[in-house]
C-alpha cells in the first residue's frame, strides 16, 4: 500500500465520522426548523391564539394554556412525590441495605426504568384508576370536597392519577443518580462523623446529603425534563379534558397536557389550523424541555469540574 492511498483512506475515514456527526447535528436543527415551518399557519393566523384559554376544534379555537399548565402541573406534582421516594430509597440503599438487598434494589430500579410508557398507561388505566377513585378520591371528595382543589366528582382518570403514574416513571432517574452520588461521599468525612458517635442517619443528614446536594438537585431537574415530555402513560390516564383548570381547579378533575393533546388529536386532525396549532404546542414543549435539560447539564458540568479540581 503506497503512502498516497493510506493518506486518502485516513482522511476519507475522518470525513466519514465527521460527516456522520454533522448529519446528527442537522437532524437536531431540522427538528426546530420543521416544527417552526409547520406551525407557521397558526402563528400567521394569530400569534397569540396558542396562549388562549379555550381549545374548541369545532369553532376553530386553539388556545393551549390549559394543556401547557397541565404539563407543568402534572410534572411538578410528580417530581414533588418522586423526590421523597427516591431520596428515601437512595439513602436506604447506600447506608442501610445489606449487599443482597442492594443487588435486588438495583434490579428493581433498572426494571422500572425499562418498562415502556404505554405499559404504565394500561396499568394506570385499568388497574390503578378504579382503585384510586374508590379508595382515594371518593373519601377525600366526601370529606374535604368543599376545598376547590379536592372537589368532585371523582372520575378516576384525572390530573392526580397522571401525576401518580408519572411519579413511578421518574423515580428511577432520581434514584440511580442519587445512589451513585451518595456512594461517593468521602470516607474520611464519614469516619470522622462516626468516631464522634454519630448515628448513621446523622451521617447522612449532616455529611452525605449536603455533600451531594447539587448533584441531587440536577437529577431532580433531569427527572422534571423527562416528566414534561412523557406521553403515553399520561395520555391514557389524564382523561384529556379541557375542564381543568378554568372550569374546575380540582386535582381530581380530568385535565390535558401538551403531549396528551398531540397524541390524542394529531392523527385525526384535518384542518390546517388544527394541525399547525398542535405542532406549535410541540414546539413549545421542545423549547421547555431543552431549557430544563440544559440547566441540569450546566449543574452537572459544574460538579464534575469541581470534582476534577478538588
Amino acid at each position, binding site marked *: 500500500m503506497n503512502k498516497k492511498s493510506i493518506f486518502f483512506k485516513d482522511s476519507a475515514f475522518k470525513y466519514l465520522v465527521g460527516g456522520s456527526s454533522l448529519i446528527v447535528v442537522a437532524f437536531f436543527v431540522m427538528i426546530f426548523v420543521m416544527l417552526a415551518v409547520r406551525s407557521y399557519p397558526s402563528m400567521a393566523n394569530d400569534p397569540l391564539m396558542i396562549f388562549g384559554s379555550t381549545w374548541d376544534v369545532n369553532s376553530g379555537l386553539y388556545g393551549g394554556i390549559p394543556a401547557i399548565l397541565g404539563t407543568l402541573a402534572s410534572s411538578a406534582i410528580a417530581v414533588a412525590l418522586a423526590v421523597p421516594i427516591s431520596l428515601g430509597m437512595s439513602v436506604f440503599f447506600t447506608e442501610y441495605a445489606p449487599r443482597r438487598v442492594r443487588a435486588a434494589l438495583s434490579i428493581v430500579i433498572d426494571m422500572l426504568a425499562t418498562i415502556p410508557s404505554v405499559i404504565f398507561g394500561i396499568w394506570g388505566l385499568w388497574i390503578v384508576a378504579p382503585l384510586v377513585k374508590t379508595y382515594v378520591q371518593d373519601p377525600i371528595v366526601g370529606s374535604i370536597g368543599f376545598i376547590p382543589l379536592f372537589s368532585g366528582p371523582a372520575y378516576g382518570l384525572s390530573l392526580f392519577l397522571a401525576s401518580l403514574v408519572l411519579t413511578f416513571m421518574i423515580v428511577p432517574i432520581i434514584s440511580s443518580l442519587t445512589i451513585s452520588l451518595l456512594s461517593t461521599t468521602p470516607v474520611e468525612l464519614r469516619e470522622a462523623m462516626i468516631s464522634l458517635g454519630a448515628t448513621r442517619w446523622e451521617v447522612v443528614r449532616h455529611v452525605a446529603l449536603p455533600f451531594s446536594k447539587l448533584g441531587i438537585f440536577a437529577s431532580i431537574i433531569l427527572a422534571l425534563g423527562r416528566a414534561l415530555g412523557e406521553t403515553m402513560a399520561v395520555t391514557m390516564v389524564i382523561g384529556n379534558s379541557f375542564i381543568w383548570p378554568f372550569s374546575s381547579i380540582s386535582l381530581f378533575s380530568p385535565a390535558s397536557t401538551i403531549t396528551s393533546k398531540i397524541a390524542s388529536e394529531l392523527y385525526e386532525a384535518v384542518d390546517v389550523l388544527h394541525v399547525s396549532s398542535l405542532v406549535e404546542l410541540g414546539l413549545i414543549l*421542545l423549547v421547555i424541555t431543552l431549557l430544563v435539560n440544559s440547566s441540569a447539564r450546566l449543574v452537572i458540568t459544574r460538579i464534575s469540574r469541581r470534582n476534577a479540581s478538588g
Partner: protein
Amino acid sequence: MIVSRRTKEKLIIAALVALTGAAVVPLFWIIGSIVWNGISVMSLEFLTSLPAPFGSSGGGIGNAILGTLIINLFASGLGIPLGILTGIYLAEYAHDSRMGSAVRTIVESLSGVPSLVIGLFAFTLIVLSFRHYTGVAATLALGIMMIPLVAKATEESMRVVSDDLREAGMALGIPKYNITTRIVLSMAKGGVISGSLLAFARISGETAPLLFTALFSFYWPTGIDQPMATLQVLIYNYAISGFADWVAKAWGASLLLVLLVITINVAVRYLGRKKYGGA
C-alpha cells in the same frame, strides 16, 4: 438523650423502608398484572394471526408483532451506524475542538428531546409532505432516537481503551483509521454491541412517535411506505377502546412487549457483563 437518638434512628429506618417500598411495590404490581391478565390470551393463534373482523372473537396480533420488528430493524439500520460513527468521532477525532464540544452538546440534547417531539418531526417532514401515513416516518423517528444512545455507548467504551495501545499503533506506523477501527473499536466492541442492543430495546417500547407516523393497520404489512400495525400502538388503541376482547388482547400484547424489552436488558446487563468486563 441517647435513647431518643436511637429511637429516632429506628423511626427513620422504618420511614426509609416504607419509601423504598413505595417504589418497589408498583414494579411488582405492574409486572404481576401484566402476567396475570396477559397469559390467558397467549396462544399460537394469538401470536401468528391477523386481528379477527370486528365483533367476532379469536384472531391475533401477528401483524403488529411483525410491524414492530420491521420498523425496529429499519430504524436500527439508520440509528446504529450513525450512532457508532458519531461516537467514534467524539472519542477519537473531536478532542476538545469547538466542533467536538458542539457535537457532544447536541447529541446530549437530542437524547433529552421527548420522543413525541421526534415523532412530530417525522410527521411534519414526511407525513405532511407526502400526505400519507407511512412506516418510513416511524423508522426515521425511532432511528433518530437511537443515535444518542449508541453514540454515547460507543464514545464511552472507546474512551476507556488505554492510550498505550493507540501509541503502540502509532509507533508501528499504522494509519489512524486503522488504529481506530482495528485496535480501539475492536477493544470497545462489547460496549458498542450492548449499547446498540439497549437502544433497540428502548425503541421497542416507544409508542408516541408511532401514533401519527406508522398509524395502525388490521392487515399484514405490505411495504415500509404504508401504514403499519405495531405492538405499541396496538396496546394503546386496544386498551383505550373499552371492548373486553380488545382490552384482553392489549394485555397479551403488553406481556409480549415487556418480555422482549426485559429479556434484552437482562441479557445485556447481567449476562454481558462477565464477557465484556464493565461494558
